[in-house]
């Protein structure tokens, strides 16, 4: 123990105790330095430099060191090996650069605090250049007989100032002015004009007899090489060897829910996002390339500005600059034991030097239920109830006279009023609004980005809401010429109220949850009785004033919604700091420290008017949890280009992570007053359950990576990570995760140089191992656990009881996923058409499964590394600019992902039931049986059950009788052909697969003048959904589904809804023993399996940008207004609320594709404005 204390170094101390001081001091520094500085000062710096027989590269390096400026350039483009000699004493940097670089045809420009260099045929002055002044410096050539004028615009149609316009083959030229206008004299019609500008593709135009030449320049993706964030560093996109999908921050902010996870849907190949419930603040699951794990969780690791394991829901999409999804092992293996499920890297926005930029966004709108379930009105329901009641007539030997609940007059009355539409009582139009404000700016020594946001959302179910406040501050400080520092702070607070939905309540009863009961409470009973109290039991009336109650398993949904309190409060503080050192040429060292502190409290209270709370005088619980995460990464990077052709980057990291969590829970009942409820725990007469827990988890890691690029053609990457984790068993504390990848840019080869159509062609291949360390702390230790109380002494209060929790498990370790990937990146016609295709195979071994152990040990299961799963897939994404140059522009991109999973090995290779215990009473899980099974050779998400073949027709009477059934009754497939249906043998057929055959997204942006239309179509194909809700809604005795009207009758034999058959009639048929009784109440029937395919118009946004000419007068640089429609339409055959469902806790493998009545997805309409100045 002493050792541990001793080892608490200053770093942890700082992280734990001094975070706020640190922030404060950083804020003070920025306040002092950000004010008076101006970007232009960079070029005003005074420089003394003496270089003889040196080269451009050395010249730039020397300047970098002495002035602290950053140069950004392509070595090849500017020719860093070109020789030069420079002698300047106390000159301004701008002067030195102009005098040195200009003669070498190198232009420079200030961008984001760095100086960007580019090769140009002519001078390229700085961005504020005055065309007139430079014209004067141009040497004049021969006679100028005419003048050509025009304007140069960017892709959005905005004027581009500073574009050089030169007559080809001459030194004669000019620059465009502030709004992109130019004027140049030319000698003849045969002359050509060359337009060039940093970051854009140059264009040559033949003049002919034109006097006015307008054109639009296209971004040069090559010149402004896109830099991608990869784990522990960045890489040029062209140098990537791995499979990485990238999404721009601006694409993520269009959804009104303002959630990154939800907004990611449909935008990246290989990434499946599923909204598991539509509740405000509800969850989404993200799976990258299918699920690898059964018990370990399948959500991707989220890394925000280097902080690992961030909860993606705490990120404000407006703060995101870019988002990268690392998919193959070459990209993810660097995250070792946490990388197996893919990695999402998020980079937040940072301040740019220059004038402060303010941005304000506001949006508001409404949400509505997408579509209502097709349920009976009161009259229909009464008729159905009468028909059903008539069948309850006993047996031939003991006949019963059925009581028919509704008289003809009553039905007529019900037809007239329509009864209660419970869906109308529960669902509403929910308002939502959203404010976002950000300021970014700074000088050369300090830059800042500060943003604040507020979001308020009412759910579409009464009494549901969600509010979020967030604040971010990102600071970058240039401490010395060789040291940079930064502080990022993110604070987010959110709270919501959503009574439980999905798989039952906290107390395991679906009657306590509103979405389920709203479809099941009969339309005859009004919401309130004559005294204004809730009608809790459905009273179905009855003739002559007698009482007939409906079945017990319903509860007033309005009472459930309004009288259940379910409050969640969450506060997250994330802070990260870094220090960057430039140690030697090409060698830099970065120390980062990060802390994320999350505190969360949750309370539920079911009042005496709710089903769980009645009879026990209210029941409720309180949960508090605290989560602290600390991370220290020390990253050494060496990056250099040797002999022009060999680019080498070596990264070495030592890292440690520490997670500490604490939580407590108490549940109580018997409250003195519903008003105070769980808020007055002292008023509870009984504590039902209480526990608390704390855990600590340490991950010590060492990792390295080498990237080598030869001549921009051949590239290899190799990485290796060693993870030592405290949660692994004593015999397996360290895990090792290697990876290797290679790529070949064929387009750089000489034989393709002249094929103009192909602008990029790259082949990639990778292999690597990653892990999933999904073991909870202390899970490898033998434990004696509390919580097993029993009145051992026989008194009225239980004695505290402790029991063996689990056996020691010293061999437990991570799950290992080996992934191979081959892919290609294609670009045609100057990147106007791009495509990426990836093919992968992932094999996960050492799967963590609860292995059953012999019961005589005293334990039932031990978590063990057994089993293996494979995922194979294909991802294609295509992007293009079909219309790029005219007034009408169109950008489009589409992606499609195929994934196939297969179970390779299991314990004993016997089918393994997953999720066998649940609340809900749907009879689809239970002890020893399950809807979902893992089975060797079969897909992971396979559902198994009884194959329903519809109903027996009249013509099949004899055949049906052999099976002990009558026409109109459900017809089952006799799988083993023994002439009867039994639970053991005939419930083993595959009846569905929850995994889609493919998922897809299609993203478009069309702009015309000041109008901009974007839309996203997204969907899924080939997946099945088990619509468990129908088990209840199509229950003949009290179901409400309109499908019951389609039940079998002599005139309607082609249906899968069984007949209402009287028990006496059935008796008289002498069918022998009912041979289907073997399946009992088991509801794993293919009748409830529906196609989950859908195509959805996820988002349509029309933006109008008010012309610069108008808003410019008010000092506004951009003002736009937009309207958005979310989930405008969905094409699907699924009959539940929404095909994009899954069960309540879908984190594990078993939940996917089972609809247990989750919160429905909404349709939203929004209006918003966006202001920048």
């Amino acid at each position, binding site marked *: 123990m002493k050792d*541990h204390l001793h080892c608490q*170094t*200053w*770093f942890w101390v700082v992280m734990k105790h001094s975070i706020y001081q640190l922030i404060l001091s950083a804020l003070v520094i920025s306040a002092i330095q950000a004010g008076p500085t101006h970007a232009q000062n960079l070029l005003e710096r005074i420089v003394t430099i003496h270089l003889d027989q040196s080269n451009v590269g050395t010249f730039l390096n020397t300047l970098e060191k002495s002035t602290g400026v950053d140069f950004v350039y392509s070595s090849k483009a500017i020719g860093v090996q070109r020789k030069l000699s420079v002698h300047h004493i106390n000159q301004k940097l701008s002067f030195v650069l102009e005098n040195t670089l200009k003669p070498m045809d190198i232009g420079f420009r200030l961008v984001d605090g760095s100086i960007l260099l580019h090769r140009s045929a002519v001078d390229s002055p700085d961005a504020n250049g005055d065309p007139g002044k430079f014209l004067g410096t141009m040497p004049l050539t021969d006679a100028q007989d005419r003048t050509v004028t025009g304007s140069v615009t960017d892709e959005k149609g905005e004027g581009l100032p500073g574009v050089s316009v030169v007559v080809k083959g001459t030194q004669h030229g000019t620059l465009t002015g502030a709004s992109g206008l130019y004027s140049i004299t030319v000698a003849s019609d045969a002359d050509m004009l060359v337009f060039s500008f940093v970051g854009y593709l140059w264009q040559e135009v033949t003049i002919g007899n034109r006097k006015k030449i307008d054109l639009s320049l296209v971004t040069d993706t090559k010149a402004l090489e896109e830099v991608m964030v990869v784990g522990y560093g960045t890489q040029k996109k062209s140098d990537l060897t791995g499979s990485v999908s990238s999404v721009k921050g601006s694409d993520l902010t269009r959804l009104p829910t303002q959630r990154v996870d939800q907004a990611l849907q449909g935008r990246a190949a290989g990434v499946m996002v599923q909204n598991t419930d539509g509740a405000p603040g509800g969850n989404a699951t993200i799976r990258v390339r299918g699920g690898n794990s059964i018990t370990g969780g399948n959500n991707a690791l989220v890394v925000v500005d280097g902080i690992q394991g961030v909860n993606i829901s705490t990120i404000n999409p407006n703060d995101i600059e870019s988002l990268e999804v690392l998919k193959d092992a070459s990209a993810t293996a660097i995250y070792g034991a946490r990388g197996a499920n893919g990695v999402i890297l998020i980079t937040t926005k940072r301040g740019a030097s220059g004038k402060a930029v303010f941005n304000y966004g506001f949006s508001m709108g409404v949400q509505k239920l997408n579509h209502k379930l097709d349920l009976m009105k009161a009259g229909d329901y009464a008729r159905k109830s009468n028909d059903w009641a008539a069948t309850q007539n006993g047996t031939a030997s003991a006949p019963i006279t059925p009581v028919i609940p509704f008289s003809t007059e009553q039905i007529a009355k019900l037809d007239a009023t329509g009864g209660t539409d419970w869906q109308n009582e529960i669902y509403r139009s929910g308002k939502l609004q959203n404010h976002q404000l950000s300021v970014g700016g700074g000088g050369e020594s300090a830059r800042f980005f500060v943003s604040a946001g507020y979001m308020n959302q009412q759910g579409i179910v009464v009494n549901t809401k969600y509010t979020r406040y967030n604040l971010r501050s990102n600071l970058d400080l240039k401490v010395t010429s*060789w040291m940079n520092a930064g502080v990022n702070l993110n604070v987010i607070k959110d709270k919501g109220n959503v009574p439980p939905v999905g798989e039952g309540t906290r107390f395991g009863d679906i009657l306590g949850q509103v979405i389920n009961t709203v479809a099941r409470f009969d339309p005859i009973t009004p919401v309130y009785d004559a005294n204004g109290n809730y009608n809790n039991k459905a009273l179905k009336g009855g003739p002559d004033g007698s009482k007939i109650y409906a079945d017990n398993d319903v509860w007033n949904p309005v009472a459930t919604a309004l009288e259940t309190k379910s409050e969640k409060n969450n506060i997250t503080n994330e802070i990260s700091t870094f220090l960057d*050192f430039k*140690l030697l040429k090409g060698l830099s060292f970065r*120390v980062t420290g990060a802390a994320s502190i999350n505190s969360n409290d949750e309370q539920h209270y079911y009042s005496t008017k709710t089903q769980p709370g009645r*009879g*026990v005088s209210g029941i409720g619980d309180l949960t508090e949890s605290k989560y602290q995460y600390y991370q*220290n990464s*020390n990253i050494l990077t060496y990056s250099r280009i040797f002999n022009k052709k060999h680019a080498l980057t070596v990264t070495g990291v*030592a890292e*440690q992570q520490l997670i500490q969590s604490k939580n407590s829970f108490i549940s109580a*009942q018997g409250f003195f007053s519903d008003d105070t409820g769980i808020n007055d725990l002292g008023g509870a007469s*009984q504590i*039902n359950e209480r526990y608390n*827990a*704390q*855990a*600590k988890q*340490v991950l*010590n890691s060492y990792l390295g990576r080498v990237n080598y690029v030869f001549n921009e053609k051949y590239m290899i990457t190799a990485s290796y990570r060693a993870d*030592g*984790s*405290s*949660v*692994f068993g004593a015999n397996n*504390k360290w895990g090792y995760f290697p990876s290797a990848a290679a790529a070949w840019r064929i387009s750089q080869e000489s034989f393709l140089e002249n094929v103009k159509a192909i602008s990029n062609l790259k082949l990639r291949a990778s292999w690597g191992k990653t892990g999933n360390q999904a073991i909870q*702390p*202390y899970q490898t*230790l033998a*434990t*004696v*656990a*509390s919580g097993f*109380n*029993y*009145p*051992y*002494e*026989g008194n*009225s*209060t*239980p*004695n*505290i*009881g*402790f*029991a*063996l*929790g689990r056996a020691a498990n010293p061999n437990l370790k991570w799950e290992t996923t080996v992934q191979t990937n081959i892919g290609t990146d294609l670009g045609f016609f100057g990147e106007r058409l791009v495509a990426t295709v990836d093919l992968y195979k992932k094999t996960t071994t050492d799967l963590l499964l609860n292995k*059953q*152990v*012999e*019961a*005589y*040990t*005293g*334990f039932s299961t031990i978590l063990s590394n057994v089993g293996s799963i494979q995922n194979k897939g294909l991802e294609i994404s295509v992007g293009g600019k079909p219309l790029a140059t005219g007034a009408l522009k169109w950008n489009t991109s589409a992606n499609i992902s195929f994934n196939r999973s297969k179970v390779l090995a299991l314990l004993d290779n016997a089918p393994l039931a997953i999720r066998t215990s649940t609340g809900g009473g749907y009879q689809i899980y239970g002890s020893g049986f399950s809807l979902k099974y893992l089975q060797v050779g079969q897909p992971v998400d396979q559902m198994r059950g009884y194959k329903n073949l519809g109903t027996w027709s009249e013509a099949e009477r004899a055949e049906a009788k052999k099976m002990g059934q009558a026409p109109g009754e459900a017809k089952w497939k006799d799988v083993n052909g023994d002439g009867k249906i039994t639970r053991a043998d005939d419930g083993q057929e595959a009846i569905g697969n929850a995994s889609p055959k493919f998922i897809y997204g299609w993203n478009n942006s069309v702009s015309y003048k000041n109008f901009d239309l974007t839309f996203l179509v997204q969907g899924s194909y080939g997946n099945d959904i088990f619509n468990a809700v129908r088990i209840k809604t199509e229950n003949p005795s009290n179901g409400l589904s309109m499908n019951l009207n389609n039940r079998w009758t002599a005139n309607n034999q082609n249906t899968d809804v069984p007949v209402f058959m009287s028990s006496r009639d059935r008796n008289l048929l002498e069918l022998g023993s009912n041979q289907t009784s073997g399946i009992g109440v088991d509801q794993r029937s293919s009748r409830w399996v529906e196609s989950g395919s859908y195509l959805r118009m996820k988002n349509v946004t029309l933006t109008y940008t008010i012309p610069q000419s108008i808003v410019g007068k008010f000092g506004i640089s951009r003002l736009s207004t937009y309207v958005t429609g979310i989930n405008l339409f969905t094409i699907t055959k699924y009959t539940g609320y929404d095909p994009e469902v899954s069960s309540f806790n879908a984190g594990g493998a078993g939940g996917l594709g089972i609809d247990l009545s989750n919160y429905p997805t909404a349709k939203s309409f929004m209006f918003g404005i966006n202001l920048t100045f």
Partner: protein
Amino acid sequence: MKKNILYSSKSIIALLLMIAGFSCQSLEEMPEGISTPQNFYTTVGQCEAAYAGAMNALFVTWGGYQGLPSFPDGQFEGTSLDLGVSSFNELWNWHYKSIANINSVLRAVKGGSLASNSQDVIDNVVAQGRFLRAFNYFTLVRLYGKIPYITEDTPDPVSTPLTPESRLEIAKVYDLLEADLTFAVDHLGDYDAATPGKPNKWIAKGYLAKAYLTRATAPLNQTEYYAKARDVANEIITEGPYKLLPSLQDVFKTANNRSMEIMFAFYTTSQTPYMPGNVFAPSEMDGWSGGPVKIYWASNIYPEQPRKHSYLLLDFTSDVYDPSAPIINWSKSADGVPYIGKYNMPNLTYDQQVGGGDSGLEMKLLRFADILLIYAEAANMAAGAPTQLAVDRLNMIIDRANAGTEKEPRATLTMSKAVFDQKVIDERSYELCFENDRYFDVLRKRILEQVNLPDNAQGFQETDYLLPIPALDAKAIGQNPGY
């Protein structure tokens, strides 16, 4: 020069950061909120908490014996002799889980975890554990026959799997559990009103008497144990604190859960564990229709007497929520079966019946009435004919059941050994019905087929006298014949 200084200062700062920043957090886990077998069991209180946990393995709200499927004992409706391969697996699991927890205490105590206490205190803790262990094995040996008798001295069965040789002969199992019970009898304290449910020497003696009696019958048929059973039972009756409640209406009242007739039970409290009152109630009482009583037995076998109407629920309200609703007979009810009277009103209050929470119901395991009947059976069999004391003690039960009506004939000295024995067994089935006792009588008297006649004895086989061992365990230690 200046350049060099620059670099060295940079390097020093970087180096410092690297060293300082990387603290050495150990990968060894030291939980602060979780106990381990190595640091637990160091006080008497901790050991007794582990015993509470061992009982919790058998009986919890919604679990354990509350969810035990009905045995085909001729008293539950809807049972079958087609004993599914897995239907009673849970029972095996609960008992071995309980045993593992007890052995964990005994192992620690043997290793000296209580060394700072006096030997008397240590012996008492060990005696409690050995009593509970015997209680578990007694159930297992009767249901499964040859079983492994795992003790604190057995190597850890997780790392050292058992083999078919681990299954001991039935007599050997009885020897071991009798040794455990005898130790308990010698070292447990007397009945203490402050801790009425805690194992005491009388309870241990009660189980010893029961074990001896079982040993005297099938499958071992070691008749010399009748005398032993008789003597121990007699000791309890004459010297112990327990007695018969005068009125049969009082026995199962939830208010009388700690009456002096109850020796041992699965106890409940309003907190945990508890049993809801509506589980065993008919639909008319808003119940879940659990534990229906076999119609044939209730109608044709159980003698008509006040006890029948108290222990069985034959007539009940047609709407529990409506005080004016008429009383109906089970034959007119929706479910069409009688239910267990011991588990319903009037033994429960109205609130306990319909509340959905704790109903005060307990599962009795050993009652003084049982001891009287053990005595009567053992004394008759040991002597070869009924003794006066055997007759008197049997008649104590019959008289109370008749409650003055004389409807069921009393036992007499003139009865033959066999007739008297049959009368005792019958009396046990009436008095101790639905108390987790009848099936064991059925097994030891070898009447499984007989009690399931006339309608559900199909497929009876001699091997039905033992349950199947759960598949995974059977793989290691072997399966009982017939499965």
